[in-house]
């Protein structure tokens, strides 16, 4: 049902529209024209990223460069992916592109830090992703609040030229991406589709420890969700960068300097690719060891490297553990003598 919109911008440059092929709302066709929560499928995140990248290049960037009135904040944030990718490529190039032109001995010498830089850039991204993911998963498991819960947003744009009929585009957001304005309305709508407006809140309330169904669970649950999400987002903003730093520190260990060197020089590309996962695995294990002990490239123990390496590892793990524990602390309904003190039957005025 992904509706396409051929949108021309103000200077009438024909551009392809964003395609969101990963969601098909066959069950409730009427939702296709409204914002709605979509089901999470495996690899959705990866597909969204690829999709965003495609849109960035072919759609959002041209729209932004032409100053289209329809270019919005979502698209601007989406484009944040571009400097990440070009920046990573440039960093790798700075340490590698000139190497093959150097004098022979230097060529060999430059290969080592070049490989480490490449690995560093990749492990930075992986670390950052992992740091975010771990807290999300932890919080989800503890509270049932999925901070990655996706929803599809249908945006009605202004016509790009007189008579422009195709004015809707789709965007993929997360329900909790804003702590100021979480999309409660979509959670309600999701419940309404199944006949219980508060279905989601009931579920969370149960997780909070309320044994009986609350009369107005949203009153009780919404502030709690906000609190959990805020705490988790704050923790992630530090923790994810610590994970990224650990990634770079791992890449700075000896094995990653040789990650692309194969003993058998004549090995085919397919053979190299097949051998790579094992090589990567052992490089990660070996690097984690030396990062912890502080051993340097010559096998000599470096006191400072060991101290900072250990600190980094502990700080990273602790930030994740703390992030999850802190976000979930206070989530459970407080109990007195094992009994929840609340009058679930009490009437309240909905504000």
């Amino acid at each position, binding site marked *: 049902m992904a509706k396409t919109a051929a949108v021309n911008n*103000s200077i009438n440059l024909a551009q392809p529209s964003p395609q969101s092929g990963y969601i098909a709302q066959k069950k409730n066709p009427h939702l296709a024209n409204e914002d709605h929560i979509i089901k999470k499928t495996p690899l959705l995140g990866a597909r969204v990223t690829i999709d965003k990248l495609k849109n960035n290049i072919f759609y959002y*960037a041209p729209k*932004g*460069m032409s*100053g*289209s*009135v329809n*270019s*919005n*904040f979502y698209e*601007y944030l989406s*484009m944040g992916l*571009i*400097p*990440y990718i*070009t920046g*990573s*490529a440039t960093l790798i190039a*700075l340490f590698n592109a*000139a190497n093959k*032109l*150097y*004098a*022979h001995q*230097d060529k060999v010498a430059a290969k080592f830090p070049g490989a480490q830089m490449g690995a560093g850039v990749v492990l930075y991204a992986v670390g950052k992703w992992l740091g975010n993911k771990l807290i999300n998963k932890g919080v989800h498991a503890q509270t049932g609040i999925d901070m990655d819960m996706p929803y599809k947003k249908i945006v009605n744009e202004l016509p790009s*030229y007189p008579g422009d009929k195709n004015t809707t585009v789709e965007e993929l957001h997360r329900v909790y991406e*804003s*702590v*100021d304005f979480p999309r409660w309305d979509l959670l309600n709508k999701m419940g309404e589709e199944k006949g219980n407006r508060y279905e989601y809140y009931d579920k969370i309330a149960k997780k909070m420890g309320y044994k009986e169904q609350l009369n107005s669970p949203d*009153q009780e649950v919404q502030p709690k969700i906000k*609190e*959990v999400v*805020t*705490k988790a*987002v*704050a*923790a992630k*903003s*530090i923790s994810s*960068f*610590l994970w990224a*730093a650990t990634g770079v*520190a791992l890449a*700075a260990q000896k094995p990653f300097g040789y990650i692309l060197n194969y003993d058998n020089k004549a090995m085919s590309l397919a053979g190299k690719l097949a051998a790579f996962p094992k090589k990567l695995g052992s490089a990660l294990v070996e690097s984690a060891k030396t990062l912890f002990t*502080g051993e340097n*490239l010559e096998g*000599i123990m*470096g006191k*400072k*490297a060991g101290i900072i*390496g250990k600190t*980094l590892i502990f700080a990273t793990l602790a930030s994740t553990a703390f992030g999850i524990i802190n*976000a979930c602390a206070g989530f459970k*309904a*407080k109990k007195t003598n094992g009994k929840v*003190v*609340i*009058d679930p039957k009490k009437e*309240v005025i909905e*504000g």
Partner: protein
Amino acid sequence: MNGVNNISAQNQIISQNLLREKNLFNSLILQSGSKQVDQPKGKLLATYDPVTSLMVSAVDTGKDVRNFVKAIATGKSDDTSLGRMNDVGLKIGGLGIASYLATKRVTSTAKGMEFVGFAAFMAAMTLWPKIFINFPMYLKHGFHIDQKYQDSNGKKKDFSLDNQYRPLDLWKAEEIDAIADKNHIDKDIKDRRELTENWIYKTSLQGKTLATLTAGIAVPLATSMVCSAAEKKLIDFNINRAVEKATAGLENMGKTLAKPLDKNTSKAFEAILSEYKAKPLDGNFYSRLGELFNPLGVIKNEIDGDSIKLISGMNYEQSSKNTAEAIKEVAERAIERFNAAQAVKTQNAESVTSGLVSLLGDKLKIRGGISDTSATTVLDAEKLKGILGNGDLNAQKVLKILKARNVTVEDGDLKAAIEGIFGGTEGQMKEVVKAIRGYAAKDLKEARLTTGALGRFANALAGKRAESVYTRGYNGISSAFTDRMNPSMEQMRRFIDTSRITDEIKTTKSLITRIKELLRPVAKKAGEKEPEKECKTAEEFVIRQIKKIAEWKNDKKPEDSVDYFIKNIKKHLDEMDKFDRPALSGMKKFTDTLATLKDDSIRTAMSNFIRRSRVSNDGTAMRLFAALDLEKRLLSTSVRQNYSQKVIKTAQDIIYRATTITSAESLLVSKGDPEVYKQALKLLFGDKIDKEVKGAMGGELGDLFKDFKNFRAKMLSLYNRQIIDNTEDAVSLGEPIINLFKKGCKKKYNTTKWMQIFGAATVGIIGITLLAQFFIGKSKKEQELYKNKGAKNAV
């Protein structure tokens, strides 16, 4: 209780809401809506100068941290604050990375560069759009696309953050009009202000998108450019600071000595000493001591028995008891070993012969001929004595001589046998020295004691592998010389690359070279000079270039003159001179502090080490001057007539290539006719110095000229003697010019190549970014639409 509380809190909020609504209603009714209910408090913020803006951003970061703590503790925050926390995380992560990577770097500059790189990256992220997009756009359009405002909640934001949320009420109408005027928006358009507002947002969006598209490429490039510029400065800073710190270290030595050993160290120390009470000292003993402290940091760069001499020269009476006594005990044991070694250090041929014969008997064989297959015969005592000669012998020397004469031992180890005769001391000595040096090198930085302080000082001034004054001097001379030789990239690649074969070079000629070659016949016809024949070797090239300098006349570039050549290299000698004075005074302070040194050997050894390093640099520079002087004089016909071609060739061989390994007892071997060699030396170092060279060195009274004269005299005697028996003489020859040039080429080639690629890329991205701005802010089409249809219909 809590549930109830929650509900009552709810009720409270509701009643507050009701009250507010009532008040609103009242105000609307009673005051006829003339007053706004909630006066908005938003305002545009001033654009700060860089310093103020840095301070403001520091304060803002402080607020971010406060907001972070609040968010973590209470779960209360907002999107803007949470977004800004990401920047805090980015900085913490970046600092973590820099701190860790710094531990993996060896020199202080490399360590420092990790932090410089991080700071430069952060700065580039902020400054790239500011300098190359926002500022030019401000000049062109009259407003800042990153204009900040403060919203009613006190949050700072860019006015153009969200293209579809436009706080335009913050701008005064006149400001909008001024922007419209500056950008030549037609005055007769009816909805001119609205058009301008739309146009401001359109332009801002374009600028911001441009920043997003270019930042990824520009920020790392700009960072690397800043870093390569900053690195040189940082090296200078670090070298100067290291000398200062080391000098202060010498001055404070008294205090350092008075520091007692801490509890753990002294405990561990006693344990080692008691373990070795009965056992002979071995490498392990010293290694373990090295884990505790580094009493001999000073000898890091020293070799052989000198190391042990240093220890025997120590006197610790001046110092406080704990630390000094500990060291004294180590020293005493080492001295014991040293004395034992000294006692049997040399023997004469007779005693060695009798020793060997009694030890090996007729197992000692000598091979008759040169080839491996020739028969071996038993070596008799008389013959052995003859081979060994008359001088004082040590184990190494004996081994060398016997090996040279094809002496072998049947079923045995010649080396072990010889060391047996010399009491095994040489081998053991080596082991001890090696062990001491091993931990000294490892722990040099943490040296806590007097000798460590002196070692740091010597290292700061003359350390070979570290960043030091003299290393910088050498690098300066090397690159000044290489630059002056002015090799092309193609030539440098050929001179430094031993891995390529000649044919391959031909096939990798650059496109420009090929075109030039194709056009050569045409150019020749047009009267262009035939290009110079390509030099095959680095040596040919260097001689040709130095000759060119020698041939310099006033009509050529001043950079190619004799005067410039000499002064440009002298600059680096002068720079080193500046540090010689503090070096001397530092040494003096050291001696004064330890006034009761039994002998001056520590100081002597260190000043020898420092002087050698300096002499080596001077030699390298002087050698260049001597080459230029030679080529200059060779221009005169009379000189060419006085000396045969063979002599000239030998002289050039000596000055461009002659070398010796920097250890004692190396020979400078003359090849061929001794008479030619003698003549060549006269031509090189004996004849009168060229007038122009003399002039450039400041004439008869110039310090440099005096030094040069001394250098020539010394070289004349050294090369004549052909024997170099001490390190200082060996290094005084300086680096062979060809080696110096090749090393310089390698450095220059890599740096230039890197710069060619990434410098060009940086210029390219700046160019594209600036060029793209010509297409930003075009408004003709909209103006037409507005004119024809009015604001409401124009899209």
